């Protein structure tokens, strides 16, 4: 009553307190312009709206400051992880080359010699080869015959391949030691180079333009709104996992093998492979996407130079595949390994599968079993190949590769017979390829002050993000089992409605897809009453610092 009376008495007050319009009327002098300015015309179809939603997400990921936050952001839409196509380094099915080329967007150039950019180190390499030759022969003899190796073998892989890899690993370590010791006083970049033994290489990206799985197609056939776009493609998450024997990395990136403008060369176009990957023999697995180049974000030596890989998996392949396909399998391994490593490095520079590289990166890959050596030089020009960009993106990556060559013919009575100096020279040339300072900004999409989580001032935020990132990347199993629709439910509840009298509580009865749960859809840690802030804080749960990249539901 009093209120009403007051309002009646002070009618002007009411009009001030309750504003009828949502915005205060702005008296704008420049309301009129010479030429009419219209808002942009937006595509309001469902595809158009979805596309805009996705693009805002990509933009938000681009705007994030730190590497770790970007990596968490890639995983934000899925609590239980992405159903990733697993490209393991050493699992290569028959006829995998078209798929691998398409998924890594790589044009493969078989060569006999290294590309032209290596020509100027040829004469130095010759001298060094002569100096090093005797040591390498010794090392080969000792590792192959002089030492009785006792490798611990696992039961997961066949024995011969594990033995070959283990021996090759010993030989590679020796050869790397000999060559880098010899080169330290001759070229400046070797002494500052980091050597990693058995690093963890992982890479995650999205590939578009792949046929949808049958289950999705069958579901779409039942939905009326999917009538016109039954075959519409989805992004396929892809995860590469590999472990090289040994890698070298440096503070500065290698020189590009071919000029960056060549990346758009139409000759390098890779044919599209739209068949679903399980047609070839690659299968999917639920996991969080991870990008690991063998070190944590914030390391100073973040550009790869050279990586050694084993070829033991060739022994596990069936005889019926034939030698020709085995050669292709080596090329596939090299392309996967080089692309995977470079992509992970690019991710640490602040690029993601949604924001393309602005400069080329290069690496060198060696695949060996001690005797047979094949050499690959790889240039990464683009990493964007999700659905909208698969056909649009004009850039392609390039890989030069040789056939496997014999380093020596045989080892008899503790002596190496017929050491091939050409092979050794090629390897030395890989070491001589010196990294260079680039003139452009290497991290255009990272913050000025904060580039990794460790740079964040706020203690709580920094610690939280660090913990979350490490936990996410560990891909440890969840504390609770992932949701499951039991077979009896599928039969008696979904397919035939025979339990209509029961209360509907299960996710499929409530129209919830538990696998669409987002990463931040969980209760944050509880704050016990005792620990809450003194005068009656009502805050029950602790803060979370997930990057805000998703569109609100």
């Amino acid at each position: 009553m009093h209120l009403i009376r007051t309002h009646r008495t002070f009618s002007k007050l009411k009009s001030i307190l309750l504003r009828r319009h949502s915005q205060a009327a702005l008296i704008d002098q420049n309301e009129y312009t010479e030429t009419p300015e219209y808002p942009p015309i937006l595509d309001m179809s469902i595809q158009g709206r979805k596309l805009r939603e996705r693009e805002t997400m990509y933009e938000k990921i681009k705007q994030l400051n730190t590497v770790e936050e970007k990596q968490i952001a890639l995983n934000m839409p899925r609590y239980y992880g992405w159903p990733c196509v697993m490209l393991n380094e050493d699992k290569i099915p028959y006829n995998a080359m078209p798929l691998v080329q398409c998924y890594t967007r790589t044009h493969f150039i078989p060569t006999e010699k290294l590309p032209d950019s290596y020509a100027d180190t040829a004469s130095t390499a010759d001298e060094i080869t002569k100096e090093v030759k005797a040591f390498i022969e010794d090392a080969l003899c000792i590792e192959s015959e002089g030492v009785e190796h006792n490798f611990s073998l696992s039961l997961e892989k066949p024995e011969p391949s594990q033995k070959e890899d283990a021996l090759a690993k010993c030989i590679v370590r020796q050869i790397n030691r000999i060559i880098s010791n010899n080169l330290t006083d001759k070229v400046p970049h070797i002494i500052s180079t980091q050597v990693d033994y058995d690093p963890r290489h992982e890479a995650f990206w999205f590939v578009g333009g792949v046929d949808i799985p049958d289950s999705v197609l069958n579901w779409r056939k039942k939905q009326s709104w999917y009538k016109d776009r039954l075959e519409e493609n989805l992004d396929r998450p892809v995860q590469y996992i590999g472990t090289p024997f040994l890698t070298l990395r440096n503070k500065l990136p290698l020189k590009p093998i071919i000029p960056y403008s060549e990346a758009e060369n139409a000759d390098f176009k890779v044919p599209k492979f739209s068949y679903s990957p399980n047609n070839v023999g690659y299968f999917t697995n639920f996991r969080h996407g991870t990008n690991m180049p063998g070190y944590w974000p914030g390391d100073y030596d973040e550009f790869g130079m050279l990586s050694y890989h084993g070829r033991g998996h060739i022994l596990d392949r069936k005889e019926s595949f034939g030698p020709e396909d085995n050669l292709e399998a080596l090329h596939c391994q090299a392309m996967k390994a080089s692309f995977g490593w470079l992509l992970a490095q690019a991710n640490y520079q602040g690029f993601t599968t949604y924001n393309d590289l602005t400069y080329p990166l290069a690496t060198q890959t060696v695949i060996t079993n001690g005797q047979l050596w094949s050499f690959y030089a790889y240039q990464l020009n683009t990493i964007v190949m999700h659905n909208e960009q698969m056909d649009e993106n004009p850039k392609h990556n390039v890989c030069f590769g040789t056939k496997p060559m014999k380093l020596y013919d045989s080892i008899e009575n503790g002596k190496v017979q017929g050491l091939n100096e050409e092979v050794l020279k090629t390897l030395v040339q890989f070491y001589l390829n010196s990294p260079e300072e680039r003139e452009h900004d290497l991290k255009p999409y990272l913050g000025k002050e904060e580039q990794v989580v460790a740079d964040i001032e706020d203690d709580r935020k920094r610690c939280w993000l660090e913990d979350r990132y490490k936990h996410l990347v560990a891909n440890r199993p969840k504390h609770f089992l992932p949701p499951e629709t039991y077979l009896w439910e599928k039969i008696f509840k979904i397919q035939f409605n025979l339990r209509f009298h029961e209360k509907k509580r299960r996710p499929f009865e409530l129209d919830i897809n538990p696998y669409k749960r987002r990463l931040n859809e969980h209760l944050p840690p509880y704050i016990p009453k005792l620990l809450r802030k003194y005068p009656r804080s009502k805050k029950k749960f602790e803060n979370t610092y997930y990057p805000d990249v998703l569109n609100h539901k």
Partner: protein
Amino acid sequence: MSTRWYPIYQRGNPQLRVFLPNFWMKLVRPLPKQLPNTVSFQCSMEMTKYDIKNYLEKIYNVPVVDVRTKITMGKFRRDVGRGYVVKDDDVKYAHVVLPKGQTFEYPDLFEKSKDDDEENMKSLEEAKKSFKNYIDRNKDRQDVPSWFSI
């Protein structure tokens, strides 16, 4: 190979008998969008990958590079008449990979019978038409039987 027991010979039984193996393979229509060098079969549950490879190579001279097998669960359906849920048998599928250059196209089995179908449809149409004519003709004397006409 057969898992059947060889019956004990009783006097008077026929002496020459043929025992069929329980290995069989049935060529089935491939999934939509499958690589052109893969062929899909349904096969008997006992066959292993090696059996499948040998079966195709030794009997039919088909070059086999790789075999992938998969057991799929049979469909659940309502029993007709009684209404309870029954399950069909599981099926073993074998996806056989041929060498790179080769392609396989599922044959059109009913190519010839297509012409027959068309002819059948034509005669059916004609029959329908004549019946309609008959109905139209006798519109105003509906209760009269068909044999009673001029």
